[in-house]
């Protein structure tokens, strides 16, 4: 078994998406979800800085990896165990801008948690999005367990766990990959390596260049992909999904990317990274890059782009208005759902 880490190069050409089996419509859908993730996120920062909401944590810069990889999955039957930046993943899996904003404003109607969790802690049983907490890497084991259940029932569902390179240091990451490797579970381990765990750079997180190299230690392939190239992400994910559905086991995908914002609205990234570095990465914005490609491919025509922009803006406006006016939970909501089966003391 060849277990050497594969590096996938971005390939040129004006019909890359078609050669990957994506119709123009699908290619544009990917673009629109990336745009929506970014736009909702930008609006959250605006509202946060106006003092209308206490906290925001961002997907900005990582939408290519998120949507590109999620697009290789089947929403509804496959599962995802996202981490807190994965707005692009959960939007692809059926969450809406309203859902995001209801969570951001911590309203009662927030489908993730009823306003209990901080923003970014996604979860929906209906949409097959496994709820996440704040301690990192726990979701990798949950993904292995979800995939074990699929195997036990002989279903061909694939489960994708998403995490940052900081979470790669956690023991649960090792335990999950080890278990999934042993049982050849249909799991994609997706590391969105944005170079920093809050302030700590990758060089202080691990002694190696590629998280994906670790896959060899678990008996399955590791792939490094340019996380800001959405089609490259889609391509490696599709191959990993096909491999998983064939029963051949997991793949570790490392998407090299970057976060444009500070860790969160409570962080000051000027304390640990240079503005020049951020500026360089902003030039590699996955959305702009994909838009350029789609325009050159003749897929993203001006009127189409205008329609997309209008739809995105309309959703952001609607979501903001709706969520900001939506009612808070009441104090009575504090004590509900400690258990599924309510128990009286």
């Amino acid at each position: 078994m060849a277990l050497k880490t594969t590096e996938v190069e971005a390939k040129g050409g004006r019909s890359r998406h078609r050669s990957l089996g994506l119709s123009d419509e699908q290619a544009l859908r990917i673009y629109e979800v990336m745009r929506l993730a970014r736009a909702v996120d930008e609006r959250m920062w605006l509202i946060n800085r106006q003092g209308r909401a206490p906290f925001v944590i961002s997907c900005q810069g990582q939408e290519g990896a998120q949507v590109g990889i999620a697009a290789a999955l089947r929403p509804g039957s496959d599962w995802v165990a996202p981490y807190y930046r994965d707005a692009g993943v959960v939007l692809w899996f059926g969450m809406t801008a309203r859902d995001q904003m209801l969570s951001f404003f911590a309203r009662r109607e927030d489908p993730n948690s009823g306003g209990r969790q901080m923003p970014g802690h996604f979860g929906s049983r209906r949409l097959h999005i496994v709820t996440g907490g704040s301690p990192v890497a726990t979701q990798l084991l949950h993904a292995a367990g979800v995939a074990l259940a699929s195997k036990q029932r002989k279903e061909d569902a694939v489960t994708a766990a998403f995490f940052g390179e900081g979470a790669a240091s956690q023991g649960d990451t090792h335990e999950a990959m080890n278990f999934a490797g042993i049982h050849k579970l249909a799991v994609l381990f997706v590391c969105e390596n944005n170079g920093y765990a809050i302030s700590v750079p990758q060089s202080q997180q691990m002694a190696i260049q590629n998280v994906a190299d670790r896959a060899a230690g678990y008996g399955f392939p590791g792939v490094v992909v340019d996380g800001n190239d959405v089609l490259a992400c889609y391509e490696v994910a599709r191959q990993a999904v096909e491999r998983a559905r064939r029963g051949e086991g997991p793949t570790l995908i490392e998407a090299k990317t970057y976060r444009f914002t500070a860790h969160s609205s409570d962080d000051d990234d000027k304390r640990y990274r240079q503005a020049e570095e951020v500026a360089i990465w902003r030039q590699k914005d996955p959305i702009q890059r994909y838009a350029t490609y789609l325009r050159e491919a003749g897929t993203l025509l001006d009127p189409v782009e205008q329609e997309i922009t209008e739809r995105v803006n309309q959703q952001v406006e609607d979501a903001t208005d709706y969520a900001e006016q939506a009612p808070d939970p009441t104090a009575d909501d504090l004590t509900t759902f400690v258990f599924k089966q309510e128990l009286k003391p």
Partner: protein
Amino acid sequence: MAVKTVIEAIRDGMDEEMARDESVFLIGEDVGNRGGVFLASDGLYKKYGELRVIDSPLAESCIVGVAIGAAVNGMRPIAEIQFADFIAPAMNQIIEEAARFSYRTAGDFNLPMVIRAPWGGGVHGALYHSQSIEAMFAHVPGLKVVAPGTPADAKGLLKAAIRDPDPVLYLEHKRTYRLVKGEVPDGDGVVPIGKADVKRDGKDLSLIAYGLMLTYCLEVAEKLAADGISAEVLDLRTIRPIDRAAIIATARKTGKVLVVHEDTPFAGVAAEVMAIIMENAFDALDAPVMRVTGPDVPAMPFNHVLEEAFMPNPEKILAKARELAAV
């Protein structure tokens, strides 16, 4: 009705539930071919196969984390932690994850899963094969914690735990495994979670216990009877949700309560039981509520003198009960 040991009752409980419901499976260290280090799953691997009796890697967080994921996706896992003492690596998964799934999703998710853990001392298990962990986990809202002391309760509570929609920490006292025998009803015999059980009626004082200490308290009650003291023995069976009504009822009935556990005393189960009594039955008390517990040292030593000094036993309980009766 058949007379069984605690370990047989646990095995029967798992076997019957696995036969009844295909979504029930077992995962843990050595649970497969070996049948578990205590033989709790003896024969199940052969009967149900490798997809339903899974030898896990030696990694407790993995055992619990995988069980959580499987429960999300429609299964009813039984996660076995080989010794309760080894549960610490899984605490993040149990406390931060399993116990929060329902609450943090406002009821969207729930986890029908059981974590079985052999606990307790008196087996020359030293620091890391003797611990009592119930207080640490009972402190966590969102977890149910049960600690049966008889074969019938062991089987009945295990069945209830497996069928429960929420995560249940099922503590099986390893000293009772083969020491305690008793009649187990034919059929399901499900014992509801959250219900204590009066194992012996009495009127002069109440002994409240669970696990191995139940057996000891029943012995003590017998000896007290010879002295003309009528002791009631309340078996908590479930640590959380604790049966407040049963605790209050026995306190009101006898007016004198001794709480017994081998766990260390500070912020322990006895302390909670005493608080419930103080808040709800203070006016009915004829004496301060007392307790017999393990000492406030980190864990139980290997040497037999030290082990005996750590463990509550019938003599220690009897002495304290006589002190209470004399008030």
